[in-house]
């Protein structure tokens, strides 16, 4: 079995998405003063995107801090990123950055808090992904 780790800012969009997904998930805290979660099994990371017009700052700082720890980073298997198509070519760019940095696939992207259609396809996609990942890395 595997798990989800996510970050959500005070806007709560990603938290809203994760709660509708109905899967247990560890939350990376908003405040740098709170302790980071400690995943003990492979996980998929879900994160929003905060990029400016040049793509800078795409990955929330707390997510970078979470991934900077080699132990936590070793267990990431894939990333799902949220964003808004209004940001053009940097739509959900945090997923691209994390995928490249960590050498894991960008599984998919969704807008804002996701539509019901996004929930269905991502739930389904996660099932397939874990099945395939377990077969290849077990």
């Amino acid at each position, binding site marked *: 079995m595997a798990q989800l780790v996510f970050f959500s*800012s*005070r*806007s*709560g*969009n990603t938290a*809203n998405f994760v709660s509708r997904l109905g899967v247990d998930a560890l939350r990376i805290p908003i405040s740098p003063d709170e302790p980071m979660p400690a995943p003990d099994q492979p996980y998929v990371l879900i994160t929003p995107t*905060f*990029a*400016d*017009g*040049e*793509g*800078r*700052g*795409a*990955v929330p*700082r707390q997510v*970078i*801090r979470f*991934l*900077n720890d080699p132990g936590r*980073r070793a267990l990431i298997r*894939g990333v799902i990123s949220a964003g*808004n*198509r*209004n*940001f*053009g*070519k*940097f*739509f*959900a*760019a945090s*997923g*691209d*950055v*994390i*995928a*490249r*940095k960590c*050498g*894991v*696939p*960008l*599984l*998919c*992207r969704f*807008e*804002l*808090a996701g*539509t*019901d*259609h996004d929930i269905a*396809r*991502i739930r*389904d*996609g996660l099932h*397939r*992904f874990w099945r*395939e990942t377990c077969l290849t890395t077990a």
Partner: protein
Amino acid sequence: MKDAMNTARAVPAAVNWNRLQDDKDLEIWNRLTANFWLPEKVPLSNDIQSWSQLTEAEQKLTIRVFTGLTLLDTIQNTVGAPALMPDALTPHEEAVLSNISFMEAVHARSYSSVFSTLCQTSEVDEAFRWSSENEQLQAKSRLILDEYDSTGHPLKKKIASVFLESFLFYSGFYLPMHWSSRARLTNTADLIRLIIRDEAIHGYYIGYKFQRGLEKLTESERAELKDFAFSLLFDLYEIEGKYTETLYDPVGLTEDVKTFLHYNANKALQNLGYEALFPAEACKVSPAILAALSPNSDENHDFFSGSGSSYVIGKAVATEDEDWDF
């Protein structure tokens, strides 16, 4: 007894950006100021040849659509963003709203840059006259302005503002995205994309502040505001439907534009923290328009929508933030 002195406004506290009540204010301030731009940055004159290849009817449509957008930006610049200031929850929010107000002035000003680069003065004057007389354009402006001027619940102003920022612009934004997908007016489309990017942050931020305000209310007050929001959206949608038909029927694009309206109406509701109104089938925006909105971010490197065996591990993004340790 009230005298003149008692009704004088209180001296505001000097805004201290090193003491934040809400980190979101600084985050959005930084994002908006980093994204600052002026229309002079976009080489609009490269579109002169492309403009000359549009038919007369297509040119007229484009100018009219842009005057309609100019009106919405003008309202948001001079009335909308300032109307939200008295209800600000923090002093920093007022500063962010002043940035939003000014950028709306930049947006309104950029359409005139497009006009002076591509169009004849007489055509533009005609279109501005049209915008001041067009029934639907006036009606939707009226609905929004009435909320800005209302003495009702202050959160209703934010609802109206999010609908303007995240819904009403899109019957207009559709057209330059459509032209761009046909390799026409591509520099103008670049300018519009800058506006679209700004409006996304405005809608997100005002919607965020709306939700913070909502947290302080009772269940029944929240229910009343939700009813109000959906009812206002219905009214605006009815006007937008007619506006869309008037403009786009002659070029056969009405249904495609309406799909785009549904998609954006749902996003506007999400900014307010509400569920979707339009079902997924009604929101299937054509891939060409989505690609025009967010170029180079199509789905081919998306593991879930592909076969599962071929995907790219992240495209190159120019983001080397110093916070990374690896």
